[in-house]
């Protein structure tokens, strides 16, 4: 009688385990019923956001200030309203980039800035301040590279440049202007 009861309990336990495993394997194979979030609908929104990027040694490299950040889980992109990117490297002239809106893609590697884009590099002992104005610009903040394929206006010291497109490398300190370049330089003071 006692042996029978033991066997019965074992059989019930085995059945429960079998049924549970079967159900679990079925559940695992079923396609997820969760609806994917639309690329146009952010997963979360943050107002008045300040993000700081640090380098490997823990020193702050960049600060990003925006009125609103909308994050999209689907592709890891973020959209910014009134963004301003400020470099925080004390040994280099400060670099600032601002626009009406921006989209950060490739996990922060690339920033597409649009609407009243302004890129400014502060003056240093050996070079005057540099200002670049355009309507659309792609920035790669880690490499300090900026590019625009729409008309640009550039000012440095007493020199003003206009062109149809530009590339600027802040590390190499090389500015390339293409497509109908026109430059105006004030006369030297005699």
């Amino acid at each position, binding site marked *: 009688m006692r042996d029978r009861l033991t066997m019965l309990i074992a059989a019930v336990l085995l059945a429960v385990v079998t049924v549970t495993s079967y159900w679990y394997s079925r559940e695992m194979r079923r396609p997820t019923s969760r609806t994917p979030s639309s690329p146009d609908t952010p997963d979360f929104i943050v107002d008045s956001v300040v993000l700081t990027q640090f380098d490997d040694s823990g020193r702050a490299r960049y600060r990003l200030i925006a009125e609103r950040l909308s994050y999209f889980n689907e592709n890891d992109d973020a959209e910014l309203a009134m963004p301003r990117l400020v470099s925080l490297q004390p040994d280099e002239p400060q670099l600032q980039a601002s626009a009406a809106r921006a989209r950060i893609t490739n996990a922060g590697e690339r920033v597409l800035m649009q609407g009243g884009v302004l890129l400014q590099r502060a003056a240093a002992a050996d070079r005057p301040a540099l200002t670049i104005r355009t309507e659309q610009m792609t920035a790669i903040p880690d490499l300090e590279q900026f590019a625009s394929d729409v008309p640009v206006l550039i000012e440095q010291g007493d020199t003003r*440049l206009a*062109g149809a497109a530009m590339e600027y490398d802040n590390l190499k300190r090389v*500015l*390339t202007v*293409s497509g109908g*370049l026109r430059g105006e*330089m004030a*006369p*030297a003071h005699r």
Partner: protein
Amino acid sequence: MRMLLLVALAACTLPAHAERADQSQPTIIEADRGVFDELKQVNVVSGRATLTRGTLRITGERMEMRTTPDGYRSAVVTAGPDALTTFRQRRDASQPGVEEYIEGTAERIEWDEKTESVRFVNRAQWRRLENGVVRDEVSGQVIVYDAAASTYRVDGGERGSGRVRAVIAPRTSEAAKAGEPSKKGGEAARPGPAALRPATELPAAKK
């Protein structure tokens, strides 16, 4: 010691100065593209490049520009294949009613804003025009036009391959007023107050 056989070397003084108002004018650069290198402190524009400052105008295929610490600019202008760089600038009028222009062409033009000098290098030609009529005409391997001192110097070139050829108009006011073109074809300078004289030194010819 390089073998430099000059056929002729000449210097000549001109009566008027380059347009002084040009000095207060901005320098305008136009080209298809430009590379501005802050570290090397050199700007290179290329593709149908022009440089204008007031009445001064230089054209070429490529311009390499530098700025001195005191803000003066210089440009080395080179031409495309089978083309020449060009230079043109008005001069302050020495006589009323006479509009004077300096024109020049060469394979390379070197312009210096501070010294107001222009070097025409290789296949160099230089002309002075009064109301559109050529009055003085010089050709050689290297011509240095000093707009501030109103002089030009001509280097005939190496191994006798290039000859200096100069046609200088008489400097009498009557001739200028009449606007007669100078008689061409002479190998030597014509007599006049601005006669050619040998220079005491070479223009800094580049090898």
